[in-house]
Each structure stands twice: as structure tokens, then as C-alpha cells.
């Protein structure tokens, strides 16, 4: 039998259950119905058992059926099984079919997802951590600007995390519409303020035309001054600071770029301005 499943948490879990019932079945994964149809047309397959394309199952029940109701985290920041699968699926190198086989190989012991004991387990745990880290980096270093009153930010992540970041930013600023532009699409959060759904996806070109109450805030100079004021010169630790504010963070915004530069070069305690003011005296 050929089983086609959607590359979603629900699809993965349903495929796991199917595979556990029939170890000999063949698996095909697809992003959506159109993608599935294309794959079927290409390979000449006519009949498949499609799973997860309707999106109606309760994923928590599916997780409980597969792994039981135990508390399944080893580290307080580890996500639960649903969160784990959701994060892994966003990874650029993730392969849905391999993930299904790995989940089945755990035989109901979800601790193997987090322990990193097996090579595949470690690989997927690392995928989960990679995506999680990229998302946190965005939350840390992305600096949205107000465009016509809409908090707008461009993101460029190797993983598909634009929607996650949009939800985070919208939760943080519930009184403003937010727009996260990822390639040619834009995720809109708090869309109710501009006559859209609360969370929705629009073409990036449309995001620029959204308007809300205008606000201007030139904070860059204030921030630079504040950042400099927090530095304790005696404690400069370039290696440690580099690890925490990596060069990659510099590409996320101008503000982060300047911060990153100061991590690399330090903060000069004598500037041209201070030279000029001394000359005036």
C-alpha cells in the first residue's frame, strides 16, 4: 500500500500510526494537495491513502496514542512532542519520511527524541535546536521599523520560521499591526487593525500598502548611546561576546550590525566629537 501524508504535525503522526500498523507500506510526503497531485502525476501512481490533508484530527490525542501521556521533556526548554515535530519540519534539511521512520523506531519511548543517544535521534534533536535557535535569534536581533504605522521587518532565515516570528512580534505589540516579510510573502499579525484577519499571509508587495496610525521614532542614536553606556571596559571578553552576538546577527538589522561591530572592535573611549569639544575648550 502507498500512504501519502501531508508534511504537517498531524500528517506525520498519522503516517507513524499507519506505518506501525503496516510496516511494509510505502510513504510519500507532500506539502499540500496540489503538491501531492503533481507527485502522483509525475510517478504515475493512481491510488494512495491520503493522510492529514483535511486537518481535522486532534494532534494531542495522536501523540498520546503514539507515546503515551508521560511528561516528555528532559530540559525545561525542550518543546513537547508536537512542538518538536513542528520545529523539525521547518528545518531546511528535514525529510518528512525519514522523520516518520525515526519516530516509529522510538517504539513509544519519546525520551529517545530528546536524549540524542542514537545518531538519527541526535540529528533530529539538532534540527529542532537549529530551528529553535534561529527563531530565538530573530526574536533577539530583528529590529522592526514603523512603515505607515505598521511594524515591519524583513527576515532571511534558512528555515521556515517567518510565521512563528510574526506571532511572537504580534503578541509583544498587541496594539499595532505587524508585518514580517520573508522572500515574496508577508506574514501579517494583528491584522484586525488594518481590516485583515488576525494572522494572515499576503504577497510582500501588498504589505507596503498597509496603513495604520503613523508614528516616527528615531531611536538609533539613543540606542547607540545606551549600548555604549552598558559596557564595562575592564571586563571586555571578545570571544564570549562573539559567541553570543555572532557576525550572522549583523545582517538582521542596522542596529545589530553596529552592536556586532562594537563587539568585534570594542567601544572607543575617544571619538572625533570629544576631540572637537576639547579643542573648543
Amino acid at each position, binding site marked *: 500500500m502507498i500512504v501519502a501524508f501531508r508534511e504537517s504535525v498531524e500528517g506525520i503522526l498519522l503516517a507513524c500510526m499507519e506505518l506501525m500498523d503496516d510496516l511494509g507500506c510505502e510513504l510519500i510526503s507532500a506539502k499540500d494537495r496540489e503538491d501531492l497531485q503533481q507527485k502522483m502525476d509525475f510517478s504515475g501512481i493512481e491510488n494512495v491513502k491520503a493522510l492529514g490533508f483535511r486537518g481535522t484530527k486532534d494532534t494531542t490525542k495522536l501523540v498520546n496514542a503514539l507515546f503515551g501521556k508521560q511528561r516528555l521533556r*528532559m530540559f525545561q526548554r525542550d518543546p513537547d512532542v508536537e512542538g518538536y515535530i513542528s520545529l523539525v519540519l521547518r528545518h531546511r534539511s528535514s525529510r518528512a519520511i525519514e522523520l516518520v521512520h525515526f519516530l516509529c523506531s522510538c517504539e513509544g519511548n519519546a525520551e529517545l527524541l530528546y536524549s*540524542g543517544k542514537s545518531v538519527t535521534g541526535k540529528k533530529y534533536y539538532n534540527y529542532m535546536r537549529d530551528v529553535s535557535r534561529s527563531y530565538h535569534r530573530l526574536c533577539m536581533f530583528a*529590529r522592526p521599523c514603523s512603515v505607515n504605522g505598521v511594524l515591519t521587518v524583513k527576515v532571511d532565515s534558512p528555515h521556515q520560521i517567518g510565521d512563528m516570528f510574526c506571532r511572537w512580534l504580534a503578541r509583544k505589540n498587541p496594539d499595532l499591526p505587524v508585518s514580517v516579510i520573508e522572500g515574496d510573502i508577508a506574514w501579517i499579525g494583528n491584522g484586525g487593525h488594518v481590516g485583515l484577519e488576525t494572522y494572515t499571509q499576503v504577497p510582500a508587495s501588498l504589505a507596503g500598502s498597509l496603513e495604520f496610525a503613523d508614528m516616527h521614532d528615531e*531611536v538609533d542614536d539613543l540606542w547607540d548611546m545606551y549600548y555604549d553606556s552598558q559596557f*564595562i571596559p575592564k*571586563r571586555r*571578553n571578545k570571544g564570549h561576546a562573539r559567541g*553570543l*552576538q555572532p557576525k550572522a546577527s549583523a545582517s538582521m538589522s542596522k542596529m545589530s550590525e553596529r552592536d556586532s561591530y562594537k563587539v568585534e572592535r570594542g567601544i572607543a573611549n575617544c571619538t572625533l566629537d570629544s576631540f572637537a569639544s576639547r579643542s573648543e575648550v
Partner: protein
Amino acid sequence: MTLMERMRVLSEGTKYDSCNQSAVCHAFGPDGRCIQLYKTLMTNACSGECTYCPNRCGRDSVRASLTPEEIVKITWSFYRRNAIEGLFLSSGVIGDAERTAEKQLEVASLLRKQGFTGYVHIRVMPGTPKYLLEEIADTANKFGVNAETTSSMNYSEICPNFDYKNDVLQRLQWTRDLINKKRREEGFRGRIIGANDTQFVVGALQEPDREIIGTVERFMDKYELRRPYFMSFDPVPSTPLENNEASPLWRETRLYQTSYLLKDYGLTARDLDGVLDDNGFLLDVDPKMLLASCSPDMFPVNINTASREDLLRVPGIGPVGANRILRSRPISSEKELARMGVVLTRARPFIEINGKRQTNLFSFAGVGA
């Protein structure tokens, strides 16, 4: 003075304050410390005479202050740009602790009235009245008072305007009670209520580390202190302690390490006696490694049979690694341990896997176990 100049003076006044709220850091300074809150003093004009403090009254220095409206505006600006998670507000003592707390409360209330949902941490002054602490607890996510030192006698030496027992310890107890009350009210879905914390100035007086570690343990037990912060003393010109020696930075690091051993590893202050010298001071060595090296009879620990407590005593294995080991047994190789996050270079001399352990000079020479 312009807004920028005042802001710089007052932000510099808080650069030694640590305020980890374990959420999102937004930037890291060249010293590697994270910047996640807009930290500022309301004013550095202080009526206190703390002997180590650059803001003590009577000292000749630039004085500045920010109005509540200015602090709120700056906080919003940074917050909208996702440069911070919230505000850390401290202050010099404006007349007395009550008036200072009223001003701090004004800032927090103004922010909340404007719909600010970010994090607000208020460092209150010793002697803040209970009714104001209660009001602060309604608006701030975290609040607390700095203990600075370990005993009434030491405190009266460095902070002569305040009383350790009434103005500090009593406030730590009220803070603990208010945190518990707020947590019960808010539950898990409400706003974050930070745990009780406090800061010690290390090295301003001659108090040994044994005393500091004992105080931290007592505070953890009595006031449910979650995290102590340590600030190395650095002599400030034109203060009574200007001729004292600066405390070495490593001392602060080692104190943090011992505080983690108390907090996360289940050790007691008595267990840590072994890492102190005869005068009760820490050595510049990782205390966990020193403890393990001083107790050779407790090692090697069998990875597949040891209890969590025994695993936690192994250098290179932390609480997360210990949990992973316990849930992934049997462990058959070092590679598996490495994948679980164990630091093998540190752990190797102290562990045994399936009867195999690293050899050492003693076993090579046939001495000891």
C-alpha cells in the same frame, strides 16, 4: 544637560546591575553581558552615604535625573524596535525610601496605563514601606532590595543610613510573601512574576566567602532567594573606601559557580567547605572540579547505575546531562555521552562505562583503589 547626556549618566549608573529574566536577550556588550532591559536610574542624586557608591551624597560628581514621562518614552521607543524586553528601574534615594518608591511606582503605573505589556523590574530602596511594595507588586514583574552584605555589622559599615534587619531583611521577607501571593493570583497564564533576588557587593569589606555562601544559603532557605547576584567591589575616587583594593573578577565568577552548586546541584554550604582555604576564601579553581578532586573515594561513578546526586557530582555533567543519562540508560560508549551534552574532557577521569575507566598514575603504579 540634554536628554542624551542625562540618559548616558543614569544608564552608566546601572551598568553593574545584573537583571536576568531568562527570556530574550536583545544585544550583548563587548564584555559579553546581555542587554535585555533598559536599565536606568531615575536620578543619581542620592541622600544615602553608602561608602562604596559613586552616587553617595556629598561626592563631587555630575548629577542628573529623568522624569517619569521621559523614562516611559525611551522605554517605549526601544521596546517597539525590539531592542529590549522591558525596563529595569533603580534610583538614588530621593529624600527617603518612601518618596523614591512613589516615583518608581509612578513610572511603572504610567507604562501599564499606556498598555505596556513588557517586563518591569523595580529595584526598591532599603526601607520601602509595605503598602508601596504591595502597589509595586501589582504593576511590576519583579522587585526586590539589595542586601549588599552578610550581616548587620558589615551593613552598618557600608550603608550607615539604613538598618540591615529592618530595612533589608524585613523587605526580603515581604517581597517573598508578595511574590507567592501574586503567583497564586496570576497562576501560570498570567504575567511573569520573577523570583526573589538580591545583590551582594563582594570585597568592599573583608567578609570571607564562607560568610557570603552561608548567607546565600540562608536567604535561599528563608526568603526563597532564587538567584544571588554578585558585584565585585571597585574603589571609587572621593569615597571613604577609595584606598581599598579592588576585588578580583575571578572571585565573582567563583561565587556564581558556588551559588549554582547550591541552587541546581543540591549541595549545602557545609558541602562546599572543601573548596575554601583556611581563611574561608574561595580559590581561583572551578569549585566543582576541586570538590571532585578532593574526594577520590567517591569516583569513578558508574554511568549506568549511579544515582542523580552522584552523577551531578561529576565535573562536566550538569542537571540536564544527568537527566538525559538517567532516561537513556543503558549507555554503552563515550560517544553517546558526548551526544547527550556531557563534557567528556572534564568528566572522563571521574566516570566508568561498562567497567571501563580512564587509567591514572595511581592505578598504573598499583596504588589505591
